[in-house]
């Protein structure tokens, strides 16, 4: 091998791509699912399927507010999430270190709904941003991987520069496996270039304080904590409904997302979905008499840059069509990275075949490429199979996710160390096919009262996606068999 630019860039792309790719496939897959975190959470709370669609009443808000104050007087750091088009219920939430969880309230009267305890789709958000190891080390690793992704993209563009436009659509899936995977990697990589660069860059900027801790700009991720003793205030408290009406006069009708409770104040925050720039504009009221005490708006120009980055990355303001576009791009992006991992292994299999190092690389690649989707499906299965009244249910559900992932890793390790790499991929693809194709049946069986009301809702969408991925895995394992 000669020390020329193309070879150097090839080395950079291959090694940064592979080492970073092991993290990036997890982050991208987690991010893909986190795009619909609210919808997944609702799927995991089947008790809410029977709830009729209803607007929130003032009585419900006041009742919810009283419950929040009662919890805060007991020292719990909770806030109130208001109903939205994506999640039409009231929620009293607290941060448990990984997700915002808490009781669900009826938007008609504010009474507690008998919903099961779950972290829902927020598990995938946590996995995406911090590999479930936030807020320091996990964020730092994903941040470094994000920078690595940009490095891999730039080096990949340099390698492929001459053929970038002519081979934009050259995909030969029926060619030799190496050629077909390379084509898939290139076509998806080039077509998704704007999306991947945008997501990697905005994601890296959002978590930049982790990489540059000496630059004080604050960081969104904060560990869970209990309120200070000074925050505990005692009633009587003014009703929330009139305050919400005033806040809506300021920010617009239906644009309030959540209510925070402070020392003698109640703050109504603008919803993330209200605007492209995700800012924390809020109106503050006196908790005792409901008087407006202040409004904070992030001004135009530079202060909104951080909000714009978050808006572009999290896309909470987006229409369903845009969110589906992001979803498709993210799924293909994950597959493109997985294809890159496969290409790296194919290349090194020729020289290092049979060595422990390669078997380890094969194991890790399989565990993130197929093991993670398998664990995600296992998580959804666990959500419906675990008893609703189980103690520490959210932890048990998360435990199911990591247990399935661990089993997938051990399976991959045993098979790859035994030299049976192809059967290992096939077996995990089969497992995904079984869990994916079986999920709609599980949904119908475990949600018998409401499952036969066929309508375009979150249940149908999650079932259809699981079925789609199950069928894709079924096709994939047949391709593996044929390529033998």
């Amino acid at each position: 091998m000669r020390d020329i630019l193309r070879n150097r860039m090839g080395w950079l792309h291959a090694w940064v791509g592979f080492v970073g790719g092991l993290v990036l496939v997890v982050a991208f897959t987690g991010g893909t699912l986190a795009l619909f975190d609210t919808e997944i959470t609702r799927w995991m709370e089947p008790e809410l399927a029977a709830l009729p669609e209803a607007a929130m009443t003032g009585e419900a808000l006041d009742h919810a507010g009283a419950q929040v104050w009662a919890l805060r007087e007991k020292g719990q750091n909770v806030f109130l999430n208001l109903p939205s088009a994506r999640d039409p219920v009231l929620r009293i939430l607290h941060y448990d270190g990984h997700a915002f969880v808490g009781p669900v309230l009826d938007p008609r009267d504010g009474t507690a709904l008998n919903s099961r305890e779950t972290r829902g789709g927020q598990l995938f958000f946590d996995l995406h941003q911090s590999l479930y190891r936030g807020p320091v080390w996990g964020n730092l690793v994903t941040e470094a991987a994000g920078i690595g992704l940009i490095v891999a993209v730039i080096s990949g563009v340099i390698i492929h520069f001459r053929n970038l436009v002519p081979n934009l659509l050259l995909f030969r899936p029926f060619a030799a496996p190496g050629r077909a995977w390379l084509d898939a990697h290139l076509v998806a990589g080039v077509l998704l270039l704007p999306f991947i660069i945008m997501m990697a860059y905005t994601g890296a900027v959002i978590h930049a304080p982790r990489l540059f801790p000496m630059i004080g700009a604050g960081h969104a991720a904060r560990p869970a904590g209990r309120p200070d003793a000074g925050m505990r205030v005692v009633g009587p408290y003014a009703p929330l409904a009139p305050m919400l009406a005033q806040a809506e006069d300021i920010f617009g009708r239906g644009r309030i997302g959540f209510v925070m409770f402070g020392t003698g104040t109640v703050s109504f925050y603008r919803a993330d979905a209200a605007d492209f720039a995700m800012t924390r504009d809020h109106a503050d009221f006196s908790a005792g008499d409901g008087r407006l005490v202040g409004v904070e708006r992030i001004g135009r120009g530079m202060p909104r840059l951080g909000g714009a980055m978050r808006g572009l990355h999290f896309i909470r303001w987006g229409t369903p069509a845009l969110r589906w576009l992001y979803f498709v791009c993210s799924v293909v992006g994950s597959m493109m990275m997985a294809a890159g991992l496969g290409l790296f292994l194919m290349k090194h299999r020729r020289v290092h075949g049979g060595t422990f190092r390669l078997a380890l690389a094969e194991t890790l690649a399989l565990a993130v490429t197929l093991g993670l989707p398998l664990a995600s499906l296992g998580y959804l299965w666990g959500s419906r199979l675990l008893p609703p009244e189980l103690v520490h249910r959210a932890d048990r559900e998360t435990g199911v996710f990591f247990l399935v992932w661990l089993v997938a890793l051990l399976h991959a390790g045993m098979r790859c160390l035994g030299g049976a790499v192809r059967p290992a991929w096939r077996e995990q693809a089969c497992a995904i096919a079984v869990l994916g194709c079986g999920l709609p049946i599980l949904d119908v069986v475990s949600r018998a009262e409401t499952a036969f009301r066929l309508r375009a809702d979150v249940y149908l969408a999650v079932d259809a996606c699981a079925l789609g991925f199950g069928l894709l895995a079924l096709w994939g394992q047949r391709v593996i068999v044929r390529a033998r």
Partner: protein
Amino acid sequence: MTLKSNRKTAKGGLWKRWLGRFVGGVACAYVCALGLFSLASGHAGGLDAILRQSLAIAVLPLVIVGLFALPGRRSGPSVFVALAVPFLHLTLS
């Protein structure tokens, strides 16, 4: 950009050289980014923290790839140290 091929250079040697170059490049890029922070915050008014972070994140991968693409092999990572010193000085001053 093309350098003369050295037949004596084993593949493992090249791999180690590139690894050294990459590690040196990353360290240099990080120091460059910190230098950029200092420059951006140093002048009148100073730039907003988020803008400085955005610039640093944009510069970091470009510098890593740029340094990795630089020709020359004998100097190795020592070149990067020499390049990084002015930025380090800016950061500390």
